[in-house]
């Protein structure tokens, strides 16, 4: 019995129906991997990639499966490319140390690729209140990113989606959300061409927050009445961070600095 037919027999016996694979190819790819069917593993993992919408953790696993499966089929370049992308998403990712050297070799090459580079895939976002926008700065050495999506809302209301083409610096206008000290909650997703999430900054349930969050009414049990009703802001760590920044005139990394002050430039001279 050929390997392929054996795999099919196993798949049938385990109830891994082709219909299920079409709905979500990743579990089927995992199953194929367990069955040592590397050709099908690669095919299904690639399908999961192209179906899109994968969160970061699943996307990392997809590239890992593609890396292993390609290496097993002797497709070293495809394997190395998959591992490079896997490590772009998760620099700490590993492959099973019990794999044969032939299957681990492309992974080691991928690690070497990133070791020699100074830039890694990453993004940072900050609210620029004076311009009512969110700026997302993206470092994308492999040009994997296709779109940047910012979901933002005020203290009340639903998230509004703002989508832009990916670039080194993406600006998303927030329109009427930035009024005075209004709170802004936002989260950011950097997507590849298939809509898979390469980078996630915050999420719907734990968004990034800009503004006087300490003065927002909080949900949950009321605090005991300790006569310190007006001191809520003083207990907020963000109050003191901004206060120190204002008094000392020092930058706070730019992420939560709400001012739009001029910066002083000093010249320097160097030779190559």
């Amino acid at each position, binding site marked *: 019995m050929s390997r392929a037919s054996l795999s099919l027999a196993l798949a049938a016996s385990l109830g891994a129906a082709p219909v299920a694979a079409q709905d979500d190819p990743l579990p089927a790819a995992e199953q194929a991997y367990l069955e040592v069917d590397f050709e099908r593993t690669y095919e299904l993992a690639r399908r999961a990639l192209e179906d899109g919408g994968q969160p970061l953790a699943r996307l990392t696993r997809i590239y890992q499966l593609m890396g292993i499966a390609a290496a097993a089929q002797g497709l070293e370049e495809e394997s190395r490319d998959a591992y490079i992308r896997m490590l772009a998403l998760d620099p700490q990712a590993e492959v099973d140390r019990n794999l044969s050297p032939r299957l681990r070799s492309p992974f080691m090459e991928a690690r070497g690729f990133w070791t020699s580079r100074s830039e890694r895939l990453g993004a940072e976002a900050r609210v620029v209140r004076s311009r009512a926008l969110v700026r997302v700065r993206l470092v994308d050495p492999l040009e994997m990113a296709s779109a940047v999506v910012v979901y933002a809302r005020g203290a009340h209301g639903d998230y509004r989606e703002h989508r832009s083409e990916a670039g080194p610096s993406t600006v998303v206008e927030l329109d009427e959300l930035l009024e005075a000290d209004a709170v802004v909650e936002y989260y950011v997703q950097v997507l590849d061409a298939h809509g898979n999430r390469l980078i996630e900054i915050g999420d719907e349930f734990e968004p990034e927050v800009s503004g006087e969050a300490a003065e927002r009414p909080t949900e949950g049990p009321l605090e005991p009445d300790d006569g310190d009703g007006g001191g809520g802001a003083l207990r907020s760590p963000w109050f003191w961070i901004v206060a120190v920044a204002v008094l000392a005139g020092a930058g706070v990394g730019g992420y939560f600095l709400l001012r739009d002050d001029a910066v*002083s430039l000093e*010249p320097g*001279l160097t030779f190559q």
Partner: protein
Amino acid sequence: MTLRASLLLAMTMASGCGGDTVVVEFNFPSTDAFVRSATIELVAVSLVDQDLRACPRLVRMVEVSPLDDSLTDLSTEPRDVCELRSAAFEIPSPRSGEHAWIAAARGSSGQALLTACTVRDVFGGGEPLVMVLSPTDHYRDQFPAGTPDEACTPEDRCSRGCR
């Protein structure tokens, strides 16, 4: 500590800069290139339309002639290149936001010899703004490969002059 780091640190400390100060590093390809330059100018163009690919176009423009004031958010105007050594080179404070920063070193005839461009949003506490000056076609024509090194050093150039 390398010479480069020492020079930058000395300038930074001498100017008494605080947390809102950003160093603009003018990186010349060689001391000869510095000596051959007469003036240096830095301008910033606001990227209102977020055209992050503005650098090639702006560099081509500045190689032909200085940018018109209507295009720039700030300009140092052409200054003696030796002001970079003496830290007398004053740079106006920029407005916040993304800018294309263009530096141009010109020879005594006004021709652009070296240019640099980078897109940055400069803010307090940020990394230095590094302007890596590259030779223009005019520089390569005027000083082709094999041109003898300048006998004059930057120190000579700026203390008693070479030309």
